């Protein structure tokens, strides 16, 4: 745990605001002036841009003070004594574009592949992605299957609506063919367009992967994804194992056959008669045959004990192959399951009061069943190799149980899955802990309500205490796979389940259910709720797999969280301020924003009246960044938007601010484990940087000293040399020519050479612009440059079979046999955009070809 790691690609960003954000400190408003934060575009165009409330009338100083005092009182109070409750249609400002889920392409319906049909071992994909990909596969150009392509959102919406009442997955082709009919009916296209759309729909439906199913977002979807994963894993492993068993059975049968042939009695006429009677019908004389066969080859028989052992093993393997396969999954649960799930023939469901405790015995039972088979397989291998040694193997095989299973064998045992809600599990933590430490490959799937406290009743105020983190408890068990995920990100959930199902170790999957604590109040849907829990760090995702390596960096993955390097994810929301100016307001999505979606937290929010002084108001993230002593007199707030796009600030209670601080604390712990903003890493990098800087400075000082030394030396030497030369010259030369000659000698090499060389280099290195030669294109086939067509009807009027219009009402060539070369040449001459290219004549019997070819030349 103390291992620092610096492999995280993101650089930690400390504090806000980053560059490019202009801060209007007085009102806690940060406007984006650069491209810093991801901008959340409104779903319904400019009309849907949130507007800040304006002050309708001037408020006096006394009234302003009163408003502020009231807010202070609210902030310090508990929710029961609070101010007037806030409106139910308020959502966090950042979520306002996503308020209507029908208008959001959010990954559901989900397409579930049948085993072996998905690309790259994919288990599921968003229907929107699948449809777009399939249409692309048969209509790569934008103009192909135009109407179908334009109406893909309509198909998605219809499928979404059709699945809204269904909790179980439904056959994708059936549903989509119904959707296809409904869409065609709604579009009311003209005959030609309708026929085109029908053909395209047919092609699309044909390409839907076989036996695929569609799943909508609902409370049971977690279970269906669990089944999906089990279906993709176990049958394939079973099939491979059966093949192996069949091979062993054949080998054992051969062994026994050889043994039988060693026995002379098998060659007696009576035995031959008995075996031939049915086929020969008395034509073969068994006595004569027995004489021909002669004595048996080999006479050393295997010991009766070995023979008995082989027969017993063969019997077990025969029985295994013959018996119907057991279920794919054993689910142990405490709460009620829906009939559709409980009656699934491939799943065994058992209701137990403490499922974690019961799971071990269920697994033992399943393992014991398989232990006989695995033992038989091992004996069979030894016998086939004639390597079975009673002295060694008897005792070992005697106590052969699940602990002796190889990883492959352990994965053949139908998985035992504990399904439990966090609320119930809160009381059974000892059993959970024991189960995770036992090493049994049991999967525990826990559904949590991210707003609540596991084990607490929903009526209690959820903001009052430190939050209990089940996932963190799982991490502390060290050797189990632990995942925290939610249905809002099915790909992440399935990835974790897949790792759980393909590892011979325990796994814990803590999944956010999307069900609010207070179900009696209207809410904005499970998907938005679960997604907001992830954004607001109420339910951060992670995946911990001890099999991935020995360090946290290898084992622990936080990357699925939005902006994992930040305390809170930050976005920019286009909005209009109280003066009506369009702005992009930068704001974080904190736990308080998530809490606004949870009806149980409603009492922790109070609207800040327009005109209330801004002095003590501060955004939640800034509040949390302050020292607790400084923040005492501040009131943290979040931005909210109602259904009429009015934007207002909501002050929060001190208790909710405490909950925010608590969640932030947990998130920072996870960040450290994931190597983000890790203090050890920071210290280590600081140290390395300091050392490097010191080294560089030392090197610099050394070099400077050397340089100074060199200069000094050169100066002394040069002075001595020049003095020597001067003396020599004065003694030997003619004084009148000294100045000119000396200057020439000195200047010649130093001045002329570099510039001349440079010029030379420049001319060599910069070759003249090479003209790109265009390929000389010539076409023998006639063609039309369709995008250039101006739809003037000239060619169509000439011959409507030879020239056709496409979906854009632009011309293309039709059936060449229904027209003449003369017509195409005439059309080319008429075409105002010169888009028709007649090519060469295709019918040599046509008259005047020579003349026509000449006329066509300018257009080819």
């Amino acid at each position, binding site marked *: 745990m103390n291992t620092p790691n610096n492999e995280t690609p993101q650089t930690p960003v400390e504090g806000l605001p980053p560059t490019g954000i202009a801060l209007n400190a007085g009102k806690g408003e940060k406007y984006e002036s650069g491209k810093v934060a991801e901008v959340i*575009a409104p779903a319904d165009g400019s009309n849907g841009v949130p507007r800040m409330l304006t002050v309708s009338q001037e408020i006096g100083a006394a009234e302003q003070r009163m408003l502020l005092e009231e807010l202070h009182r609210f902030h310090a109070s508990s929710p029961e004594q609070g101010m007037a409750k806030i409106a139910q249609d308020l959502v966090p400002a950042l979520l306002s574009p996503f308020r209507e889920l029908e208008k*959001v*392409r959010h990954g559901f319906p989900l397409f579930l592949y049948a085993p072996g049909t998905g690309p790259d071992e994919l288990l599921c994909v968003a229907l929107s992605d699948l449809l777009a990909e399939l249409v692309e596969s048969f209509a790569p150009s934008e103009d192909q299957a135009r109407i179908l392509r334009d109406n893909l*959102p309509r198909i998605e919406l219809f499928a979404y609506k059709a699945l809204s009442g269904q909790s179980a997955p439904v056959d994708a082709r059936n549903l989509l063919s119904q959707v296809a009919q409904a869409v065609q009916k709604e579009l009311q*296209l003209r005959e030609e367009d309708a026929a085109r759309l029908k053909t395209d729909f047919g092609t699309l439906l044909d390409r839907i992967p076989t036996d695929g199913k569609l799943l909508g977002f609902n409370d049971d979807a977690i279970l269906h994804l669990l089944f999906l994963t089990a279906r993709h894993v176990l049958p394939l492993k079973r099939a491979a194992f059966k093949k192996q068993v069949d091979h062993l059975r054949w080998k054992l049968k051969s062994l026994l056959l050889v043994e039988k042939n060693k026995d002379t009695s098998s060659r007696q006429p009576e035995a031959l008669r008995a075996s031939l009677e049915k086929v020969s019908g008395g034509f073969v004389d068994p006595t004569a045959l027995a004489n021909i066969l002669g004595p048996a080859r080999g006479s050393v028989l295997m010991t009766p004990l070995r023979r008995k052992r082989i027969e017993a093993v063969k019997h077990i393997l025969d029985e295994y192959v013959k018996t119907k396969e057991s279920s794919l999954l054993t689910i142990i649960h405490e709460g009620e399951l829906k009939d559709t799930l409980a009656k699934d023939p491939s799943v065994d469901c058992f209701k137990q009061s403490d499922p974690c405790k019961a799971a071990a015995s269920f697994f033992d039972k399943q393992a014991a069943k398989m232990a006989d088979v695995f033992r038989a397989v091992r004996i069979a291998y030894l016998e086939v190799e004639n390597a079975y040694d009673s002295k060694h193997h008897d005792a070992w095989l005697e106590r052969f149980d699940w602990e002796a299973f190889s990883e492959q064998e352990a994965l053949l045992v139908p998985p035992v899955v504990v399904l439990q809600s966090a609320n119930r599990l809160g009381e059974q933590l000892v059993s959970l802990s024991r189960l995770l430490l036992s090493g049994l490959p049991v999967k525990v799937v826990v559904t949590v309500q991210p707003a609540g406290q596991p084990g607490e009743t929903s009526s209690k105020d959820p903001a009052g205490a430190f939050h209990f983190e089940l996932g963190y408890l799982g991490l502390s068990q060290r050797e189990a796979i632990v995942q925290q995920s939610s249905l809002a990100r099915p790909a992440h959930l399935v990835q974790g389940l897949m790792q759980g199902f393909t590892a011979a170790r325990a796994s814990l999957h803590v999944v956010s259910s999307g069900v609010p604590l207070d179900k009696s109040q209207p809410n904005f849907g499970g998907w*938005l709720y679960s997604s907001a829990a992830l954004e607001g760090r109420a339910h951060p995702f992670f995946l911990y797999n001890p099999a991935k390596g020995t360090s946290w960096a290898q084992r622990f993955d936080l990357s699925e969280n939005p902006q994992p390097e930040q305390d809170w994810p930050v976005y920019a929301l286009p909005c209009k301020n109280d003066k009506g100016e369009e702005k992009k307001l930068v704001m974080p999505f904190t736990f308080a924003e998530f809490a606004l979606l949870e009806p149980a937290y409603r009492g922790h929010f109070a609207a800040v009246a327009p005109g209330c002084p801004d002095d003590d108001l501060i955004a939640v993230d800034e509040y949390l960044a302050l020292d607790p002593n400084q923040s005492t007199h501040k009131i943290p707030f979040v931005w909210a938007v109602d259904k009429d796009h009015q934007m207002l600030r909501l002050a929060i209670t001190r208790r909710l601010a405490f909950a925010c601080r608590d969640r932030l604390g947990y998130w920072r712990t996870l960040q450290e484990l994931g190597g983000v903003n890790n203090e050890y890493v920071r210290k280590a990098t600081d140290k390395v940087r300091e050392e490097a800087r010191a080294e560089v400075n030392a090197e610099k000082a050394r070099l400077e000293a050397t340089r100074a030394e060199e200069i000094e030396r050169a100066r002394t030497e040069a002075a001595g040399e020049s003095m020597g030369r001067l003396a020599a010259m004065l003694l030997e030369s003619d004084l009148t020519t000294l100045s000119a000659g000396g200057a020439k000698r000195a200047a010649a090499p130093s001045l002329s050479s570099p510039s001349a060389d440079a010029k030379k280099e420049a001319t060599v290195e910069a070759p003249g612009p090479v003209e790109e030669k265009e390929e000389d294109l010539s076409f023998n086939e006639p063609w039309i440059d369709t*995008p250039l*067509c*101006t739809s*003037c009807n000239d060619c169509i009027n000439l011959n409507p079979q030879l020239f056709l219009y496409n979906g854009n009402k632009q011309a293309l060539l039709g059936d060449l046999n229904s027209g003449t070369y003369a017509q195409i040449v005439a059309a080319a001459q008429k075409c105002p955009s010169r888009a028709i290219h007649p090519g060469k004549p295709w019918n040599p019997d046509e008259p005047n070809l020579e003349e026509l070819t000449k006329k066509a030349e300018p257009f080819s």
Partner: protein
Amino acid sequence: MLGLKSDWVLDVPQRYYTLEDYESNVARWCVGCGDHAVLNAVQRICRDEQLKPEKTVFVSGIGCSSRFPHYMKTYGFHSLHGRALPVACGVKARRPDLTVWVATGDGDCCSIGTAHWIHAIRYNMNLTVMMFDNGIYGLTKAQTSPTSPIGLKTNTHPRGAWLPPINPLVTTLGVSNCSFVARTVDWNPIHLYNTLRTALNHRGFSFVQIMQRCPNYTSQLHQQTQNDPSLVMLLTHENGVPMDDSMSRLFKTQQVHDPMDIDEARELADRHDVLPIGLFFRDQSRPCYEDYTNIGLEMSYDERLAGFEKELDKFAVSGPQAKSKS
């Protein structure tokens, strides 16, 4: 956010419109007339933007191109000569929710409608204005128009036009508060489509001069430019008309021009050696007149009544004194 991709908006309009939903009568323009290309481009834009026909209006004046509204299955107003722009401004002033297109010609816009044109530029109402420029009065059989080149022989100038023509782009760029000026040619449907679509998506008065061929009276006017694409200069910029590979290949003469640079735009508009096409100028920040004409449009009956009462109350004698007197 929320793990969504950039195409997260699932926009499903109530109705889906195909090209046929915008097609009305068979166009009665001459064979080879450039207007056919404009009609097709506009119908495709309507389909691609899924404009509601019942929320779209085409307004025109008088002239060949002003027959445009007859060929669109939308609302249309075939108005008086030169009066396309005031009618369109009127529509926009009271029905800002409608998409308003204007089809006008060189005669309609630059001669009898000039006063309206200048003021409409200044009003900067959200209109898409297509100025079909064929340099002639075609409907009335060849009279000199304000954009007829010097020497063009017409019924009114049998020995050739005397005066240099008006340059509609230079004029438009000279009027204060102009916000969108572009030029395209009818014989390149891709550039035509892209220019008009850019114009439609600009909020303000989008003026597009369409160099249009008249096969009967000015067939020579654009022939040379059409046959020799190097005579056309393509204006390119990331904020300009979207480019297409075929356009880059065809038009070798190109210049990068920032549409925010009005001085360069004016220089380019006045070039005579080549025909610059593309977006000359765009400024999204210019005020739109309909934002002022629309104030109070959404007021309910009660709100109007309350306002009316309040105004009248200024003249009424009120208070306890008045009551006691009565």
